């Protein structure tokens, strides 16, 4: 009897959640709320929630309230696939906002594609993601672009001749950026003197950095996440390496300078937007975000916000709430005034926008230059 009860308890929740409310538009989101990527997932989620709250405060879409169901993927591909399927079949969402990591998007997006549910990824930068199908979109730029931008900046503005690379070999994003940077840097006449790697979760990087030091580069490209970069920067300076460090949007967080302290100052990274921008979309976003969460948004939050905004705009424009209608409207997104720039989705469903180069200066992020594709 006790066992029967147990079985019942386990099966019941599976069956629940099939009901659908009439006067509500439901959007699904999966993200890493726990697991090793949770800090990025939670950040994205904050941006998404803020966008949702805003739309509901202004009366929702087509007179209906918009609600969002967020599921956790624990940083696992198969969980992302299961969560997406659940959102589509159980919760019958009209569209899905994906998570950060490209890996999970590659596991989840094919499911959305096969059910013809539009899928918008805030931050999956791997080029292959949107190749999955015509229902898959993203609002961030892709790996090659960021690598390109930094290589251009490094050769033209910083006039570097010899660069070293330190990549996170566990992270497809980091590897993608590093590959493109290396190719582009060499094309522009530079030399890659060292190409070493670490794994997310490491805390000691001195072995790699000592190795880099012996090669005397003019700059080091570290396209990782701020969780490691802060420590890397510190150890770089401890070993007496004084050349500039460069990175990608994974650096963009208040935590970077909290962890790295003065060691991160004066270094450069490419980003989607600058907090120093006078663009009202940006200033407004930062003001509201600080009021709501009491912290400066990082790039994940900004991308999550933009992804949601773009999706909501498409929902508003769409004649009905069918997957096809929403998809078509998403594809038409042009010059959308997002926090992370004027976003146009091209025929590959990738965002076309310019990147900015930021210099870290304490908690301030100093705008250096804009680089357009």
């Amino acid at each position, binding site marked *: 009897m006790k066992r029967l009860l147990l079985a019942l308890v386990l099966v019941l929740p599976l069956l629940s959640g099939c009901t659908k409310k009439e006067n509500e538009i439901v959007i699904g989101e999966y993200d890493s709320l726990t697991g090793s990527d949770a*800090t990025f997932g939670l950040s994205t989620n904050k941006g998404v929630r803020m966008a949702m709250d805003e739309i509901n405060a202004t009366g929702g879409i087509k007179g209906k309230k918009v609600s969002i169901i967020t599921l956790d993927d624990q940083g696992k591909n198969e969980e992302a696939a299961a969560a997406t399927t659940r959102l589509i079949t159980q919760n019958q969402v009209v569209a899905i906002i994906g998570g950060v990591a490209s890996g999970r998007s590659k596991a989840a997006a094919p499911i959305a594609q096969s059910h013809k549910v539009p899928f918008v990824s805030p931050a999956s930068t791997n080029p292959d993601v949107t190749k999955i199908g015509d229902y898959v979109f993203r609002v961030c730029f892709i790996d090659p672009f960021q690598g390109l931008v930094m290589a251009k900046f490094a050769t033209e503005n910083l006039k570097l001749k010899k660069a070293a690379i330190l990549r996170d070999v566990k992270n497809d994003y980091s590897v993608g950026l590093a590959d493109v940077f290396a190719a582009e840097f060499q094309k522009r006449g530079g030399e890659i003197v060292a190409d070493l790697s670490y794994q997310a979760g490491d805390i000691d990087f001195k*072995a790699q950095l000592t190795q880099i030091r012996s090669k005397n580069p003019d700059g080091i490209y570290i396209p990782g996440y701020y969780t490691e970069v802060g420590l890397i920067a510190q150890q770089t300076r401890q070993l007496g390496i004084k050349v500039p460090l460069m990175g990608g949007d994974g650096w963009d967080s208040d935590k970077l300078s909290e962890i790295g302290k003065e060691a991160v100052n004066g270094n450069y990274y490419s980003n989607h937007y600058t907090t120093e921008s006078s663009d009202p979309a940006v200033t407004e976003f930062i003001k509201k975000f600080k009021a709501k969460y009491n912290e400066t948004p990082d790039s994940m939050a900004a991308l999550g916000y933009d992804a949601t905004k773009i999706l909501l705009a498409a929902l508003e424009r769409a004649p009905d709430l069918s997957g096809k209608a929403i998809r078509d409207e998403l594809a038409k997104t042009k010059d959308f005034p997002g926090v992370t720039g004027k976003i146009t989705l091209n025929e590959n469903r990738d965002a076309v926008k310019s990147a900015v180069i930021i210099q870290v200066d304490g908690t301030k992020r100093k705008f250096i230059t804009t680089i357009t594709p």
Partner: protein
Amino acid sequence: MQDFIQHIINGVSLGSIYALIALGYTMVYGILKMINFAHSDVYMVGAFAAYYFARFLGIENNPGIATLITLLVVAMVCCSLLGLAIERLAYRPLRKAPKLNILITAIGVSLFLEYSGQVVFGADPKVFPEVMKDFVLFKIGDVELKSFDITVLLVSVIAMLALEFLIFKTKIGRAMRAVSSNASVASLLGVNPDRIIAFTFIVGSSLAGVGSVLVGMKYPKIDPLMGMMIGLKAFVAAVLGGIGNVGGAVLGALIMGLSEEMVVAYLSSTYRDAFAFGILIIILIFRPAGLLGKYSVEKV
């Protein structure tokens, strides 16, 4: 040459961090013959305890000996209590159960701490308070010897010696050895195994507490999953040295740290972990009980 010396310093300094954690694994293994998977998460909780306490007292930007000692005590006490609670609630009921069960329970406790840590502390990394100012002890060319490196190494060596003393020279140490070799016989001789085991957990866990503060001051980033990687490495190091053997844990940890460093330096940084594990496998194949472990012939 300069680079080589630098690599040695890096390797030893990394190894001594592994050693601090490895000592905790080896202590518990020595007495209970179980891999306490939760040990690295006790270490994580220690780091967070120190972090929150420092914020509570407002001393997070107040480096100095007093801060160091306060945080060490806090971390050690918190870790001991947690270790004790884990032993009492999760491991003691399983004293007679098969080994694999205890291992699964330990993994369960580990997952529990990691995931409730993410709920309670938040998943984003926190910045560990600045406990002490690091400074250069001496410098030859580009090679610097930093105070933190020496501190960590000294602490682990002192901890090792203290443990050796505790185990082989004191009364409670004798009781520990008795429980380790045969708990039921030990209890016949008037030793209360439960109390000895609890004591072992206190010692092992406070070492995790010490480790958490020292690692926190050297690498000031803490997060709920910080124990995972370092725990795995430290535990492998303990096995490498011969798990259950205090000196072996330190030796294994130093070898682990140095070999990781040297693999990055002279072979390949991408294959670092593969080589580190490869070395481990080779050593275990030739010395099936680790470097200092005694391979006991089963009595027939």
